[in-house]
């Protein structure tokens, strides 16, 4: 059953058709819109690598069916958060701290942290670790990630 979609992704309107209203947002962003920020990790909402912002909230796009999005929902991906010429403070801090190894999880780390800082601009280390408790990293880059978030919050 074809499903018409109108999305606001990174400030641009996108109109498209999906075959299946259950299609998770992740597949629309990656396969229809060609975005690389949100990543497929588990499809179960367990690892966080697919995280995007929907109306400012960190959301797991791999378990978010497009049919469940509110009309006019504003979706921001890592690409829309900031680019090479206009880095978001969290992105700038991740580069400054060299906070990546393979970097596959980093999309989720940045999107989750940016959402945290919107709500709590000066989180302490415990709050940062708690906010990222459901974001998995296998390379063991956690300490640099925490430092980067502290740097972005101006508390390093």
């Amino acid at each position, binding site marked *: 059953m074809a499903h018409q979609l109108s999305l606001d992704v990174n400030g641009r309107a996108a109109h498209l058709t999906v075959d299946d209203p259950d299609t998770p947002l992740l597949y629309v962003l990656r396969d229809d819109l060609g975005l690389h920020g949100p990543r497929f990790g588990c499809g179960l909402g367990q690892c966080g690598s697919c995280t995007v912002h929907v109306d400012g909230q960190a959301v797991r796009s791999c378990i978010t069916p497009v049919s469940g999005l509110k009309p006019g929902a504003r979706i921001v991906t890592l690409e829309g958060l*900031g680019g090479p010429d206009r880095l978001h403070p969290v992105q700038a801090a991740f580069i400054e701290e060299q906070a990546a190894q393979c970097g596959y999880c980093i999309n989720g780390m940045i999107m989750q942290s940016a959402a945290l800082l919107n709500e709590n601009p000066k989180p302490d280390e415990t709050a940062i670790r708690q906010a990222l408790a459901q*974001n998995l990293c296998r390379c063991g880059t956690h*300490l640099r990630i925490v430092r980067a978030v502290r740097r972005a919050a101006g508390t390093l």
Partner: protein
Amino acid sequence: MNAPLLSRRNLLLQGGALVVGFALSGRNAQAQIFAPVATDGFSKPVAPDQVDSFLALGADGRATIFSGKVDLGTGIETAMAQIAAEELDLPLDRVTVVQGDTALTPDQGPTYGSLSIQKGGVEIRQAAATARARLVQLASERLGLPADALATENGTVRPKSGGKAINYAELVRGGRLDLKVDPAVATKDPATFALVGKSVARIDIPEKITGRFTYMQDYRVPGMVHARVVRPPTIGARLESVDEASVASVPGLIKVVRQGNFLAVVTEKEWAAVKAAGLIKATWSKWEGLPEQDKLWQHVRATKVTKDDVTSSTGDAEAALGQAARTLEASYDFAIHTHGSIGPSCAIAVFADGLLTCWTASQMTHALRKQLAAMTGLAPEAVRCIYVEGSGCYGRNGHEDAAGDAALLARAVGRPVRVQWSRADEHGWDPKGPPTLIDLKAGLDGQGNVSAWSSQFHVPEGAAGNVPLVAADLAGLPHETALAPGNVIQNSALPYAFPNVRTVCHRLATTPFRPSWIRTPGRMQNTYANEAFLDECAAAAGADPLDYRLRALKDPRGIAVLKRVAEIAGWQARTPPVKEASGDVLRGRGISYVKYELNRTYVAGVAEVEVDRGTGRVRVPRFFVVQDCGQIINPDGVRNQLDGNVIQTVSRVLMEEVTFDRGAVTSLDWASYPILAFPDVPEVVSDLIDRPTEKPWGAGEPSAAIVPAAISNAIFDATGARLRSVPFTPAKVKAALQAT
């Protein structure tokens, strides 16, 4: 975002008058080369004895480095660029690194074993130094000046006394260097290094941080379709029937591919493939060939031994055990682990004109090429594997298997096929770190020193080389499975000077799952048993564990890392168990040491633990680590590896264990195979001992080796209970506490 269709020949001709092939600008440029059209003339050399195999100097003043070793997220792309730029006297931003492309890069061996810098980097250094010497020679001929009157600087050769500088491109215009790598070539004096030894920022990080990086999972080719594999419900099940009608309604279904026990669905769009893989109805035979998990160690003990490797033999260990004042005996075991890549494996393959091209995140594209050739019946020359960085793999995970799946499917549907594994595919079907069992005996003399040491390690027969591809296995296609013994027996022998030692590795004919390597394979398990059992000896002798090691160690670089870690950890001489308690929490510290493979990188570490005696839960709040890997290329990169090794291994040691029933893996997601999360990640306090005039050694694995024993020893210090079975779960800790 689809890559432009560029044949290799076109690309080379675009390079036109370029000196050696061509130079590429921009990252991921190599991945844009479409097909292996190498039959008509210009072909780039890849023989590992040729300078042109490793580097090309472009007319634009840039250099392209061709590295057989690939960046798996460890930062070696940047490190290789540093090494080459240093030796060529080029600015770092004028160097591009092409990695792991069988048509373009020399075969420098798989990217494993902590050998990228030590072997791959040194080969690139020699090629670059040979090229630089030739450039000076060419300038010398052109200018009529002796070579020692010339200097290289910023991509030019210039007279030291002043005068016009000549660009490298002018010197080699119109031809290749056509030069053999000179292994004896003079490389730069480390005292003059401008880039090596510096914490240069990683080349790949800005794109990864802004979502502009193209991982294997992002890669697309024109006309590509999507596939999901449908694995058997048990490892040995036979496919009896498939009900194709069960997926007929899936939009854009192209084909249900069945070959033997291999089953997959191919669709126009990716989500449709996910849906179809979930919907498809198939019947499979029953199979129950796995051992019972709670009898795993009996199973390992009962497994046929194909041969024994005696890895060290000094004096007469058996006789000395008989004469010892005191003897100790213990068995250690280490669970089956999965790689746990955050991004499940992915690959793309296309057949065109009798040639197979495969884009893959494989750590071993040259070996994979042989496997794909065997599986498809093509000549290896008709197969090209192109590395595209994927999610970190930490060893041989499912990347190569996904490539096999893609190759089979591309031929079946006649279009480029992208295969993306699911989370359950990855957890269930990547090859596993094998279960390891170690029996040890020691004898102490009257002073408590080790007078006899005898150990037996139960490790797989084949633990390196080419792990059989799942697709070839399921489809009944020919295998190229040159499994090699590998280095899993390394570090079974000891770095200590004991008088009577015998260490033996029993090579097991089979393991429950396809064995492969996961970060620090064998060396981790062996070091764990040795360093924890040595701690048992120290405790029996009433000795401080640091002092006990130092008095048996003769190697000054080993002594240096142990003393340095004691310093940064503020180690106070102790006779464990100290059992420092506050309420229900017991605190302790443990030390551990390795000389990797007894011939390279030195690491020492101190773990701090907190054990909750009520719940049995262990936390590692802090870990101190000191490493000497000789000449350091990028200190920040090495520290990143130390963090990673420590944190990943704390996770493995405290939490990780593959679970299975009689038919298959049952830990198929992150809930059933949990890994360490942010709240429990230890602080890592690290220090590096840099030795710029020494050889550069590996840093990707060694520091993981010391972690399990340091934790086990710290738990003993905290509680008096000895943990000898990884993972140290709350249940095991509680049982051990009750037994003390």
